[in-house]
């Protein structure tokens, strides 16, 4: 048998894998997704909320899960693992092992009858063993695919489930099978797990004391769908804890624990957990024991301050031990290192922020893939600085937790980046074109002839609702031309019957009364489309999830309600219209604004995908910060070498047109068709370009510190950027003492944000200063050392070993003072750990200056109609799951203009932005939402009240005609504007007033006298 050919393979379907798969599929490539678990979703599906926005995790994951499962270009294999990979880039031969779950996914309706019948109860690992489930189970309510799975290791083979299953979905004869496919490129997104400290850090009592949990277990306790319905209770007695402590860095940052790296996310998730705990139960005392609080990201420091203001207590300390009291509360022994007092304190519950560790199977997978893992088992990049997303074998790319700890936005950015890079080897391939909608019957002129199909879902509906009675009441409605009951409406066989009924009875509206339109709507829309009925003509009544399942104790009222729901759907159906699927053509080409590391990388990635790029740089040379830096962490590559490499890669590609010394003048148009003027400065010609998408990569800058820390008063008081120049040019001299002051201009009232890279830059430069002037004593004045993630903590400890700097921790309330006395620079600083003031004479003071976005941002943001914050950093569309998009469709961002970041992070984002920007360009058309708003010009008074309601800037007033115009490509179909229009001139397709009102008015029709 010939191996099935796909374009790309994605391994692992957490947020990273899903994003990578969707990015590739949206470009028109056929993607195979292999997930070892029964459901996709990964770690994010287990979380409650997410920092720093407190977005509900499942609310933002579930739509992606559904989108992935439905995507026509994606094939999903769950409960599967990659066994072997032969061949090479462009033609990998992949052998996959599909573990049977003994349940036919085509037949299972997710009813759960089997689980109720199954006699075997086991600990629920999804819930961190805090609750129990059956041997046949659904991982979690939103699981995708929503198919039950038999946990073979636990199943006794009794067959009770098989007997209970109405559709006959269970078969113990289903075998695990190998499967061979070919793919052109591979993305590895296998994520991470958390350490269960049963071996290490036993002094914290995990596994021994009932009320000691890992933070991931605590997330399940907080989650509304978790084992306690979101009520935080103690496992020992089910009581609400009055006090909770978190211990940070459990296993991480430890030479003993074998996890020397910083796990990067735990400071923030502990902060989140404590904050949300207090929001829910304000009387709960929450205390976080930390060593350095790593609130390094965009808005993280503000989030941390907010938690502190909300009464979350932070104690700088690593507790020594934990013991259990008679009432199973826990006693911690610790030294508050800011007061120097040792204390014993009792807490009702203890949460351990345990190290992020790689899945143990990574090593096996690495062998199969022929790529390298590090000593811990995380996959390693080919070049940690220059190729952060390339695995060590060509054609294989890495994203998200697979490489090390990462938070959600970094995962998503990397996933898009990996998808962009994985598309390069595919650029010669045929892409799946936008599917041609099947020919449709024009039913506009016909009177409604509605067909109703009432599903009993085995016993799930039929057991509580009288399906026959509901069908009969539907049949009695005047518009209804046909009504029938069916056992499993979504089964292949029932679909055939529905199609037959539509044709035989000339039906022009279809109502299926079954489960949720969110999960099953598209299935039936497809069925209708096959016989020429537009998706807009289909309606669904949710008589399972929102009726039989929730009223199972009241069959009478449940039946009445089901009949009502069907009547409402039928009423609405009478007003529905076909929803035209519109697309607009896309002008090829992408504009990249900014020629630093980010802009150049984005341009190169796009060009390699075969896309034309216009790269605009304001300065006369390309390179951005690379022109100013010395050697680059993590591997001391000279910045100039890297700059030359990038410039060469840009220049050798005919697809990239570079405009240096050029500014962007004006921008008009929308996704697919932007008109841009480029201004070469005085005397230079103005160039007009037309592009389909735009990437903004305008970088960041140091704030002006003049007047602070003596900056500007003496040439020996400089910033890190100036130090970089000395190091590069060899002009450092031989200072005996170099005092670095971190957070200069950051973390204070005027600028509460953390610069994200300052600490690691200081660590690098302490080492480089020591190399350049070996006798130098380096003093590092810091607040928290924010060297996070894989590699940075290690670089920090290496620096400690080599340089042995004096580290002095200061507080924002008492910042260091720099003074000039008779030509000598004196720095005084209050050491919070020593609780004494120290005075140092400095030969050189280096300020780690706060960073902010480019000065042109205010002008650019107006022009592009995008947002930016007070520090001139741009607002991404969604802080968690759309870090590279603007809300304005067709415009993307990457690099330092989003927030300062290291070069590897910048490159990942840049490849990601290229991937995003390539989607409309490769598709050639952008689809217009079918449910957009529309204006009835005659009724529009031109008041403009609706305009500010649109979050997407899709509306504007036409000044000539004095009426509103909607840019349909930009409209996302929320309908907010429609409700805002005082003249009733706006309507939303698919949700027109008449359609919604038809339901409202019939809801209680039977009751009206």
């Amino acid at each position: 048998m010939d191996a099935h050919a796909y374009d790309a393979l994605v391994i692992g379907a957490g947020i990273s894998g899903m994003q990578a798969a969707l990015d590739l599929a949206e470009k028109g490539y056929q993607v195979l997704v292999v997930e070892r678990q029964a459901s996709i979703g990964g770690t994010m599906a287990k979380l409650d909320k997410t920092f720093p926005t407190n977005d509900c995790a499942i609310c933002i994951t579930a739509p992606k899960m559904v989108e992935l499962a439905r995507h026509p270009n994606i094939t999903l294999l769950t409960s599967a693992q990659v066994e072997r990979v032969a061949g090479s880039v462009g033609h990998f031969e992949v052998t996959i092992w599909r573990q049977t779950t003994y349940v036919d996914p085509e037949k299972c309706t997710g009813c759960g009858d089997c689980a109720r019948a199954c006699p075997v109860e086991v600990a629920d690992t999804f819930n961190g063993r805090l609750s129990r489930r059956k041997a046949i189970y659904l991982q979690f309510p939103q699981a995708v695919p929503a198919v039950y799975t038999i946990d073979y290791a636990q199943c006794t083979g009794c067959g009770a489930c098989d007997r209970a299953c109405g559709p006959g979905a269970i078969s113990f004869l289903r075998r695990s099978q190998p499967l061979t496919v070919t793919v052109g490129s591979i993305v590895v997104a296998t994520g991470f797990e958390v350490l269960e400290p049963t071996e290490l850090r036993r002094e914290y009592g995990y596994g021994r004391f009932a009320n000691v949990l890992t933070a991931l277990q605590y997330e399940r306790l907080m989650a509304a769908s978790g084992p306690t319905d979101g009520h935080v209770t103690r496992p020992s007695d089910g009581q609400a804890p009055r006090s909770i402590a978190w211990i940070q860095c459990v296993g991480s940052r430890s030479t003993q624990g074998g996890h020397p790296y910083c796990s990067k996310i735990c400071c923030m998730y502990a902060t989140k957990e404590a904050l949300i705990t207090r929001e829910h139960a304000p009387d709960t005392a929450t205390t976080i024991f930390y060593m350095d609080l790593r609130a390094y990201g965009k808005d993280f420091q503000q989030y941390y301050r907010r938690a502190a203001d909300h009464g979350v207590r932070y104690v700088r300390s690593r507790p020594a031990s934990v013991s259990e009291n008679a009432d199973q509360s826990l006693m911690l022994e610790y030294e508050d290192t800011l007061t120097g007092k040792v204390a014993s304190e009792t807490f009702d519950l203890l949460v351990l922020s345990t190290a992020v560790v790689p899945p143990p199977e990574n090593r096996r997978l690495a062998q199969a893939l022929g790529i390298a893992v590090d000593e811990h088992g995380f996959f390693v990049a080919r070049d940690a600085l220059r190729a952060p997303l390339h695995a060590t074998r060509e054609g294989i790319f890495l994203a998200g937790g697979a490489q090390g700890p990462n938070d959600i936005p970094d995962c998503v950015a990397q996933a898009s980046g990996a998808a962009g890079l994985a598309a390069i080897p595919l650029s010669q391939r045929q892409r799946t074109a936008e599917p041609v909608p099947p020919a449709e019957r024009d039913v506009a002129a016909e009177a409604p002839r509605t067909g109703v199909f009432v599903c009993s879902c085995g016993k799930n509906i039929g057991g509580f609702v009288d399906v026959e009675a509901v069908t009969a009441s539907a049949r009695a409605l005047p518009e209804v031309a046909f009504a029938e009951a069916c056992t499993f409406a979504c089964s292949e066989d029932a679909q055939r019957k529905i199609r037959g009924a539509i044709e035989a009875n000339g039906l022009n509206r279809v109502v299926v009364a079954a489960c949720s339109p969110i999960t099953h709507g598209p299935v039936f829309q497809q069925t209708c489309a096959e016989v020429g009925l537009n998706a807009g003509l289909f309606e669904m009544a949710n008589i399972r999830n929102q009726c039989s399942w929730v009223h199972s104790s009241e069959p009478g009222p449940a039946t009445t309600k089901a009949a009502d729901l069907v009547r409402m759907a039928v009423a609405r159906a009478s007003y529905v219209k076909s929803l035209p699927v519109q697309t607009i053509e896309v002008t090829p080409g992408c504009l990249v604004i900014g020629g630093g590391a980010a802009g150049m990388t984005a341009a190169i990635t796009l060009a390699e995908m075969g896309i034309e790029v216009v790269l605009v740089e304001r300065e006369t040379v390309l390179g951005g910060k690379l022109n100013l830096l010395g050697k680059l962490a993590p591997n001391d590559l000279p910045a100039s070498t890297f700059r030359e490499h990038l410039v060469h890669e840009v220049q050798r590609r005919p697809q990239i047109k570079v405009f240096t010394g050029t500014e962007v003048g004006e921008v008009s148009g929308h996704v697919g068709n932007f008109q841009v003027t480029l201004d070469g400065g005085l005397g230079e010609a103005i160039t007009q370009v037309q592009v389909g998408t735009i990437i903004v990569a305008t970088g960041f800058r140091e704030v002006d510190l003049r007047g602070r820390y003596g900056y500007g008063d003496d040439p020996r008081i400089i910033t890190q950027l100036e130090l970089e120049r000395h190091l590069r040019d060899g002009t450092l001299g031989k200072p005996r003492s170099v005092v670095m002051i971190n957070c200069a201009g950051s973390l204070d009232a005027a600028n509460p944000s953390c610069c994200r890279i300052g600490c690691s830059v200081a660590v690098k430069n302490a080492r480089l200063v020591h190399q350049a002037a070996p006798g130098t004593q380096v003093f590092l004045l810091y607040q928290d050392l924010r060297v996070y993630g894989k590699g940075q903590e290690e670089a920090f400890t290496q620096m400690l070993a080599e340089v042995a700097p004096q580290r002095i921790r200061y507080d924002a309330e008492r910042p260091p003072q720099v003074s000039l006395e008779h030509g000598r620079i004196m720095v005084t600083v209050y050491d919070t750990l020593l609780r004494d003031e120290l005075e140092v004479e400095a030969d050189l003071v280096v300020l780690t200056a706060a960073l902010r976005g480019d000065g042109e941002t205010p002008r650019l943001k107006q022009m592009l109609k995008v947002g930016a914050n007070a520090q001139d950093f741009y607002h991404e569309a969604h802080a968690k799951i759309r870090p590279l998009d603007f809300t304005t469709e067709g415009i993307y961002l990457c690099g330092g203009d989003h927030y300062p970041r290291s070069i590897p992070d910048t490159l990942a984002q840049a490849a990601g932005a290229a991937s995003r920007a390539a989607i409309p360009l490769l598709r050639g058309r952008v689809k217009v939402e079918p449910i957009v708003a529309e204006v009835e010009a005659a009724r529009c008074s031109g008041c403009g009240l609706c305009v500010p309601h649109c979050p997407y800037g899709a509306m504007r007033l036409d000044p000539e005609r004095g009426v509103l115009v909607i840019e349909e490509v930009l409209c996302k179909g929320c309908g907010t504007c429609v409700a805002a229009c005082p003249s009733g001139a706006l309507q939303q397709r698919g949700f027109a007033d008449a359609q919604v009102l038809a339901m409202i008015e019939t809801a209680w029709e039977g009751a009206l006298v």
Partner: protein
Amino acid sequence: MTTSIRIGSGRNELLQKVEALSGQHLANCYQCGTCAAGCPFHQAMDLLPDALIQHLRLGLPGILERQTFWICAGCDTCSDRCPRGLDIARIMEALRQICLREGGDHPALTQLERADLGALPPIALVASMRRNSG
């Protein structure tokens, strides 16, 4: 007015000696306090172990006059738990050795007069001698 302690950038001889004798690199310490909180005798100490390390690193005066390292019984609890793998017990020993080698036996030992000496287990006596004499 607060008086500040002047710290210099010159050689820190005591630190060098301690590092040589203990084989420990004190820069590695994160000042996390694990050692201090777990020490069974922290209450009796006039400088907690982590503070002692910071004093040594900064070269602050008066370290050798402190009692902390005499109070340390070498139980290794701190060394066993330090996340940075520092053997603090060795640092304590190094300080004792420096004092003993420079200034002779520890006064506590030489002043010893007690009736029940004979009843004490030999290991107590020998250990005490070893830790308190050169």
